[in-house]
C-alpha cells in the first residue's frame, strides 16, 4: 500500500479494521501457482495433473499436489488404505523405484 498517501490516520480499532478490510479488497486476483505460498494445500479446485504439481522434490513427481498428498497418506504412514505400495513395511524403496507414477508405474511390481 506504499503508493497510497497516508492522509487519513486511523485512531481507534474500528478505523484500523476498516483500513485492513480495504487493503484485502484491493488485492488483485492471483493464479494459484503464482509463487509460494500460492500452492493450495489439500484439495484443489481444478484437477489437472502437471499444472498444480507436487512442489516437493520427492515422489510422485509430476502429480497434482492433491494426488501427491493422497499418495503419501496411503503409502507412507498408511492412514488411508488404497491401491498404493505399502511404503512403511513391504516396499520401503518405492520412492526410488517409482519417482514418477505416470512414467514409472510399470516398475511398481507390488501385489
Amino acid at each position, binding site marked *: 500500500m506504499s503508493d*497510497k*498517501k*497516508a*492522509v*487519513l*490516520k*486511523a*485512531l*481507534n*480499532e*474500528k*478505523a484500523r*479494521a*476498516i*483500513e485492513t478490510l*480495504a487493503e484485502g479488497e*484491493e488485492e488483485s486476483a492471483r493464479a494459484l501457482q503464482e509463487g509460494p505460498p500460492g500452492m493450495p494445500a489439500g484439495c484443489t479446485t481444478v484437477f489437472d495433473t502437471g499444472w498444480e504439481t507436487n512442489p516437493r522434490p520427492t515422489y510422485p513427481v509430476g502429480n497434482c499436489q492433491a494426488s501427491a498428498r493422497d499418495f503419501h497418506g496411503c503409502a507412507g504412514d498408511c492412514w488411508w488404505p488404497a491401491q498404493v505400495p505399502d511404503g512403511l513395511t513391504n516396499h520401503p524403496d518405492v520412492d526410488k523405484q517409482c519417482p514418477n507414477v505416470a512414467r514409472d508405474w510399470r516398475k511398481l511390481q507390488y501385489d
Partner: protein
Amino acid sequence: MSATYAWADHRLFRWDGEPVLYGVDDVSLFHLDREAAEVLARWRPAEPLVLDQTPPQDRPVLEAFRRARLLVPARARRPRPRPPAGTPLSTLVLEVAQDCNLACRYCYADGGTYHGAPRLLPPAVARRAARYLVDRSGSHGEVTLVLFGGEPLLNLPAVRAAVDEAETAARAAGKRVRFSLTTNGTLVTEEVCEFLHRHRVSVSVSLDGPPEVHDANRPTRGGSGSYRAARRGLALLLGSPRAPVAARVTLPPAQWDRIPEVFDHLIGLGVHEVGIAPASPVTRDLLPTAEQEEALFAGFSGLANRFLAAVGKGEVLPFSNLLDLLARIHLGASRSAPCGAGLGYLAVDTEGRFFLCHRLVGEEPFRVGDLDSGPRPEAIRGCLEALAAPREEPCSRCWARALCRGGCHYENHLRETVLGLPFGGTCGFVRRWIELGIRVYARLCASGHEELLGRIGARARC
C-alpha cells in the same frame, strides 16, 4: 465504470486545531492531515460525486476517504441494525431482596420493593436462577451473576445459595462465573466480607460523597443518615479485597455542582473506581433546570480534564463514566441496542420471573417469561421494538446514534410513558458527553497513549 459516491454520515471535530473525523455509523475515528482536511472541505458539498471524473490532484485523497468508508457508493445507506433475539445468556441480575433498610429519596424501585410488599428471593429460586444462567449461556466461557436489590445483604441465605449453585454449575460446565454485588454498605460485616472476598465478588457500594450530601439522599427508614454505617462497611470491604470495590454515586440535580468534591471524597476513602449517575426523575422535582444540567456537564468535563492531566503524569483517574465511554470509542462497536437488556442480559425477580432489565423489574409490560418456561424471545423482541420505535426517526438524524442507540430503556419508559415528557430531554447532554469522550480519545492518541487506550478498551470486551 463511473461509480457515483456520496459522503457517509460523519462529523468533524477539532482538538487544538487538529481535525478528527468521526464516521457516524461505523464509530470510526480518523485524524486528517492538512491536505485531507482541505479536500474534504472542498468536496463535502459535492454529492453525488463521480470519483473517476474528479481532478487527478484530489483523487488520491478522495480514494483514501473511500477506503475509510467515508465516501460510500451513492444510495447505499445502511439500514438501522436490528437487535437479534434468542441470544444466549451472559449476565443475569438476581433481585435477591425486594426490600431495603434505607429509604433513598431518589430510589426508582419504590424503596427497593419494585412496588408491592417487601419480599425476599427464596434460596431455592436463587439456585434455579443461577443454574439457569450457566445452562443457557451457550458458547460463552464466562458468565456474570449480579446480586442486586433492594439491599441484597438483607437476604444472605439467597446470596450464598446463588453463589454456591453458580460455582457448582460453572465448574461442571467448564465455565467461569463472575459475581458482582451492589449494596448500600450498611449491613457489611466481617463474615459478609469474608464470603465476598472468598468468592471474588466485585462490590459496588452506593455512596454519594461527603456525609451531608450522602445523608441528604440516603436516609435510613428511621430518617437518620446512613453515611457512618456505609463507611464502616466500606472500610471492611477495602480491608483485604480480592476484587475491585467501586463507589456508585447517584446525585439529584441540586447536587450536580458538587461533583468534584464528591469524587475526591470517595477516592480519599480508598475505593478503586467512582461512577456517577444523575438520579432518574422518578418525581418531577428531580427534573433538572438548564443551569443544573450545565453544572453536571461542567462536573464531568472537569473530571475529564483531570483525567488527561493525570495521564500526563502516568496515572489513571478512576472515573468509571469516562473509562467506559473511552472503552466504547476505542472498540468502535456500533450498537444495535442501547444496552444488553434482553440480549444476553435479563433480571429475575423474587418470584422467578424474567424482566428485560433490573430497573424494569415489576413493570408488567417488560415481563418476558419465568424460570419455568424460560424467557420468551418474541416478548423480548416486542419490548425492544416498542422501546425503539418512537426514537427511530429522531435518532436517525443524530450523529451520536451508534454509540447511544436511544439511551436507557428504563429512563425512556419513565420519562415518556410514566411522566409524559416529550422525547429527547437528555439528548443534548448525551451528545456533549460523547463529543467530550471523542475529544479526550483523540487527545490521548495525539500524545502517544495508544497502549493505555488498548488497556481501557479491554473493559468493553467483557
